[in-house]
């Protein structure tokens, strides 16, 4: 009974439409991910097979806004803004819902950060960041259109961004 009430008041929009994956009690729901990008979203968040968290992935779910979308739910982990903002590289329409006790306590859209560190690989093979030197890749971000400029070699990545994820 308690549970039902929670459903009614809270992550209602999400839950009603998406009973394919059960609602979560605590954690983060990333909604409105560009269809087909859910696995890249996990990659960009550093969630791999070794993660112990319960992770649910729904792909190509019908959506009023996007026609098709992906959804990722991560239980018992509240992702921080700077962690999720990088998601916007591959899923600019994604929304982040932080859930506590089945309630959405925070909801916001992802926003591209000014700088990206260690997320992408520079696609200039001759860049110093692609060597055994002790440096991590770093890019300055142009938002519209999305362009990443390597701070080391000035090379610009504007297409196939998901392919450059580390």
């Amino acid at each position: 009974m308690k549970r039902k009430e929670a459903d009614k008041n809270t992550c209602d929009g999400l839950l009603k439409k998406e009973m394919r994956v059960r609602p979560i009690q605590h954690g983060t729901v990333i909604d409105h991910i560009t269809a087909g990008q859910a696995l890249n979203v996990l990659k960009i968040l550093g969630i791999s097979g070794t993660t112990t968290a319960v992770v649910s992935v729904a792909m190509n779910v019908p959506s009023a806004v996007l026609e098709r979308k992906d959804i990722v739910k991560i239980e018992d982990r509240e992702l921080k803004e700077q962690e999720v903002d990088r998601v916007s590289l591959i899923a600019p329409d994604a929304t982040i819902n932080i859930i506590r006790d089945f309630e959405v306590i925070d909801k916001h859209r992802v926003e591209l950060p000014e700088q990206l560190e260690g997320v992408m690989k520079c696609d200039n093979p001759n860049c110093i960041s692609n060597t055994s030197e002790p440096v991590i890749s770093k890019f300055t971000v142009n938002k519209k259109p999305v362009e990443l400029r390597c701070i080391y070699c000035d090379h610009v990545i504007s297409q196939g961004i998901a392919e450059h994820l580390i």
Partner: protein
Amino acid sequence: MLRHIISMKDFSRDEIDIILKRAKDFEPIARGQKSSLLSGKILATLFYEPSTRTRLSFETAMKRLGGEVIDLGSIEKSSVAKGETLADTIRVIGNYADAIVLRHPREGAARMAAQFSNVPILNAGDGAGHHPTQTLLDLYTIMRESSLLNLRIAIVGDLKYGRTVHSLAYALSMYHADMTLISPKQLQMPDVIKKDLKKQGASISETTNIEDVLGDIEVLYVTRIQKERFPDPAEYQKVAGIYRVTEELLKKARNNLIIMHPLPRLDEIDPAVDRTKYARYFEQSFYGVPVRMALLAMAMELA
């Protein structure tokens, strides 16, 4: 704060003007007048790629200012051959010297070196990336031999791989120069660089033929088509020797035209042109000394 010299993008127009003015003050010293400005200072030169004029003009500049130079020597005999990272080499050499001049085959090497260095890094070329000291000496040559005001300049040759021209075009856009880029189609300036220049407000046009513009420019900047930058030797063969500046061609030139070249040249400027009033490339190579003096002074006086 350390003043590294990595890319022209790190300089404002005002800063460039200050450096050019300072270089002018150093010219008598570059010609042999005694100075002890950098006496007691040590410059380390780390050249991971061959260089003649850049290395020697840095050494000359340092020595004529009363300073000393230490040298990494041949890469094969150094710790680099043992697999030491650039980051480690820089941290070690930074304990010996007051500034480091670095040339490296990888793009971004100087920017990275600056992160690890406790002394100023002067970028003397990073792969196909930046070569700011060359650009500054090019600007200085134009200032001394022509004028940076209302300048109309044509840049000829390899505009795709040539690192000097990217930096130069960027700097010239700060002076609102009217630039014509002359190259075969396959060696045109990359779009991303043209886009950057246009964002800066640069005025750029493109052509494949020198004669088209020769009567309308004050500076003809000729570059070598660099074999070593071509991933495919067949691509190089297609364009090698495509441009050649001759006395005959120069009949169409304005009276006050000057011809520049970062050197070394192959056959893009006929040796007969050396004797004409237009040639300035040997003066240009001399100007590397006062300009590098200004940069060394700027880097080391603060250190």
